[in-house]
Structures are given as C-alpha cells and as structure tokens.
C-alpha cells in the first residue's frame, strides 16, 4: 500500500497530492455527478473578492494550440455571499476546501481573509496575487517583491490557518518572489497562474477576447510551469504546489520530481471531468511500480548527476 498523504503543514493535510485549481472546478458541486469529489486531496474554489464582481465582458475564452486563453476576470458574488450561501452547501465535503482570495487593494485581501478565517471547515486560503485578468490589483501584486510582500504581510496578521500564495509566471525571477513571500510567513506557494497571452481573429482583425489579453493555461504552458516549480523549490523551504498543464499522472509526477509536494489540475478538468481521479490512481500505480512507499519521496526526486 502506497502512502499517498501529504502534509503541507499549518493544518493542511492532504489525503493525496491532487487538488483542483481555482476557477476550473467551480465549487466542486459542478463535478459531483461524475465522481465522489471527497476523493480529492483538495479543492481550491473560485477566486473570491470583497464584493460582487461581474467579471469581464464576453467573449472570455479562446482556444490556442494545446491550451486556452481566459479572461473571466474574477466573476464572483463576493465573500459574504460565499460565506452565507455557498459555504453551508459545501462545507461538509470530506476534502480540503481552500478559498482562492483576490483583491484590488491590500485591504480587500485582508478583508476577505478575515472573513474566511471565521469559517471552520476551510483549512486554508490560496492568495491569488497573480490574476492577469483584472485591471487593478491581481497580477500587479505578484510581479514585484515589495507589493507581494505587502499583501502577505497584511493577510498573515488576520489569517491563522494555512496561507498558500499563488505566484505569477509573468516575471523575470519567480524564485525571488517566492523567497520574499516565504519571508513574510506564507505556508506554501502554488504556481503557476496563467501566462499572459493574446489571440486575434485574422479575418475580422479583432482580438478574440474582450480584454484583448488573457491568461494562457493548459499543456502548452507545462514546460514553463515545470521549470518555475524547479527553480522555486530550490529557493524556498516551504512546500511548493505545482500546476500548469497537468493532463495525466505522468505530468503530475514530473511536477513532483521537479520539487512539488502536491499538484493542482486546472484546464484538464474541462476536457475530462474525471481527470483528477485518474491522476490519483496513476500516481499510486507509478509508486507501486517504482517501489515508492510514500508519495512524498517523489518530491524533488529528479536525478541530475
């Protein structure tokens, strides 16, 4: 029997290293028809902000080679609505529910985190300082050390449980930012959020997204994500959660070998709603085949002699 559990510390224990990524798995409910979602290591729910947001105008999505661009722009009904209407429906899932927290100002991050702090069955938040699809805040916080630090510092004061910080890949030196947020008390980092991209329809000469640019995800970005996970895991001591283009168990294992303690699956859920359970099973099979007793042995297991 392979031990699939992973302890990300400060209250975040996963039954297996597979979580679903924010914005791609709704509140979990959307996938209930397909499988028992309590089998997941964790679910990161949608990006949540201080108040209701309509998100960006339509169109918000474009397909690209082995990937997609989105420009959802954090559409959500705000943290109070979440706490009142959604939390009661989902709080008893037997898995880790993390709320992806976003904001336009440091105060907004703080406000949302404080309110989530009061919800008992939420073991942690994922601080999204890397959303490329909002005009204010979002990615701007995650692309420089001082601004990243200011968010973590403020949130750490009001939030007791696990803080996972989601990093932007749209930077020159991701390891530097990871170290900075580690220094402010982040419990873990997750990466990557989407790469800023763009698509045009040559016939109409118009951008395919209402916002012109959007966030690129899917297998196309996997090589970049893997490289960043490797760089960050060498720079920090806190656990690293890897994501970006994971479609199969082999992809997930690659992220763990590069240094991730756990992984998240995003875009792949759209193509195969069952992908996350298949990945869990595939990791287990791999461990058995390679006589790995605990999945934690994979973390950073890349051989580079």
């Amino acid at each position, binding site marked *: 029997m392979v031990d699939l559990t992973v302890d990300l510390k400060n209250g975040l224990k996963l039954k297996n290293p597979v979580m679903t990524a924010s914005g791609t798995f709704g509140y979990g409910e959307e996938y209930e028809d397909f499988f028992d979602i309590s089998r997941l290591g964790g679910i990161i729910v949608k990006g949540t902000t201080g108040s209701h947001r309509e998100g960006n105008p339509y169109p918000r999505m474009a397909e690209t080679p082995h990937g997609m661009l989105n420009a959802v722009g954090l559409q959500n009904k705000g943290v109070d609505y979440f706490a009142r209407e959604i939390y009661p429906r989902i709080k008893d899932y037997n898995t880790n529910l993390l709320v992806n927290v976003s904001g336009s100002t440091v105060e907004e991050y703080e406000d949302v985190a404080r309110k989530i702090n009061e919800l008992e069955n939420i073991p942690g938040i994922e601080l999204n300082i890397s959303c490329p699809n909002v005009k204010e805040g979002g990615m701007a916080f995650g692309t420089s050390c001082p601004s990243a630090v200011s968010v973590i510092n403020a949130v750490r004061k009001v939030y007791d449980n696990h803080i996972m910080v989601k990093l932007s890949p749209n930077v020159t030196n991701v390891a530097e930012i990871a170290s900075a947020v580690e220094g402010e008390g982040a419990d873990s980092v997750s990466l990557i959020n989407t790469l800023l991209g763009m698509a045009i329809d040559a016939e109409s000469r118009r951008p395919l997204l209402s916002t012109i640019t959007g966030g690129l995800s899917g297998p196309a970005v996997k090589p970049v994500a893997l490289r960043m996970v490797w760089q960050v895991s060498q720079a920090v001591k806190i656990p690293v959660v890897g994501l970006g283009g994971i479609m199969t168990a082999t992809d997930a294992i690659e992220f763990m070998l590069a240094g991730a303690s756990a992984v998240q699956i995003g875009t792949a859920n759209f193509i195969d*709603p069952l992908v996350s359970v298949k990945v869990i099973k595939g990791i287990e099979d791999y461990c058995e085949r390679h006589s790995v007793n605990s999945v934690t042995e994979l973390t950073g297991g890349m051989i580079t002699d």
Partner: protein
Amino acid sequence: MKKYIDDFTVVENRRLNDEYVILTLQLDRELPEILPGQFAEVRVDNAPNTFLRRPISIHDVNLKKRQIKLLVQEIGEGTRTMGSLQKGDKLNLVYPLGNSFSDPDTKEVLLVGGGCGVAPLLYLGRKLKENGITPKFLLGARDRDGLISLDEYEKVGEVNVTTEDGSLGTKGFVIHHPLMRTGNPGYDHIFTCGPEPMMKVVAKYAEKHGIKCEVSLENRMACGIGACLCCVTDTKDGHVCTCTDGPVFDSTYLKW
C-alpha cells in the same frame, strides 16, 4: 439533472451535403432523460488543433434504440473531424447539458431555425407533438442546399422555408416570411435557434407583438457545466452562464 460521460458508438454518418452531416450515436446501455434544447460537450480525438470539447445540440433522441443524433455543420477542424467519423468509431460525450426549451402554455407554437440552429428544433418538435402540440416550423437558409432533411421536420409539423436566394420557399430571411407579418400570426410562443442576428429580429418581432419568445444561444464554451465562467451572456441579472442558465433564454431576459 444528472450529467454523464459516455462513449457512444457511431452507427451512421449520413452526409447531407458539403457542409452538413447527421451522426447517429448509440449507447450500450439505457439513455438517461434528455430534454429538448440540451446539448453535449463532444471530445474530438485525433484532431491536432482541437484541444477543448465542442458543444453540439442534441438533434434527436430515440430512447428505444438508445440512440441520439447530432446535426453537425463542418466549419473548422473539430466539426470536420466529427464529420469524417465512420460507423464503429467512438465518440465521448459529456451530456445532457444546459436547461431546455420550456413547456408552452399554448398549443400554437412556431419553431424558427436558421443554419445549424435547426438542430435542436427537431427533437423539440417531436416532444411537443408527443404532448399534443403540432408545431409549425419556419426554417431559413442561404439557399436550398442549406435546408436539410426537411422530410424529418415535415413528419412533425408544417414546414415553411425561406432562402436568401429564393431557390426554395420565400425569398429573403425568416423575418420576410408571411408567418412573420403583423396581424393575427396564429401562434403565441416562438422557439428560435440560429445565427444571433436572426434571433434578434425574431425576438424583436415577438416582443412587439406580445408573443413569448425563447432563444437558444451559442457561446464559446470551455467546460459546458458551469465551472469555468467563460460562456457568460449579459442578462437583467448580470452575467449568467450560457451553459447552465441557458442555452435557452426568454428573449426579454437578455440584454440584447
């Protein structure tokens, strides 16, 4: 309604013309309930540039044979790959998705379709007929070749057609058909699916004459199940998902 992921087997690929095929797909067990207006997210294998699933309406359902039909218009790599499927090939569907056309409060209904928007109207018409309502169809196309499998619709109700070049039926767009002239139109509920400009004029006409009008929208979809929020449309309640709150909307609810 519970959603499923299933591998269907292609039992027939009937090519209607250069552009359109009807795929008949069979399941190896009982079909779940499927409502008229619902769609499936189709996974297209072996198409190198088709990454996401493709939303396609349920064109027809035969519970006894455990078969569904898809009417596919080949416009890009995904739909062309579907169009080239052969008997025995597998096709993976996430279904049935979306809401559905409502049960009308009246017996006088008009089903207006254009282009591949005629797809969901066949199953809708059949269901209406089962419930004792004989629908009228008004189908529009560029030319006679664009009007496909009319015989199937004729089995269900009266079929009226328009073509832009006048090669069949009334010349012009659906809105130019006598059925869409003012004065006692003989129906008080319209269901429409087709190009957005067409649906907009139909909806405007309906609203002007106090006729209830339900439109079935298309949108760029990633998940099809309400998880990604990519497919929003603007309504009186703000942004809602076309894939779960729709694809069928009362025209007055939309910010058109």
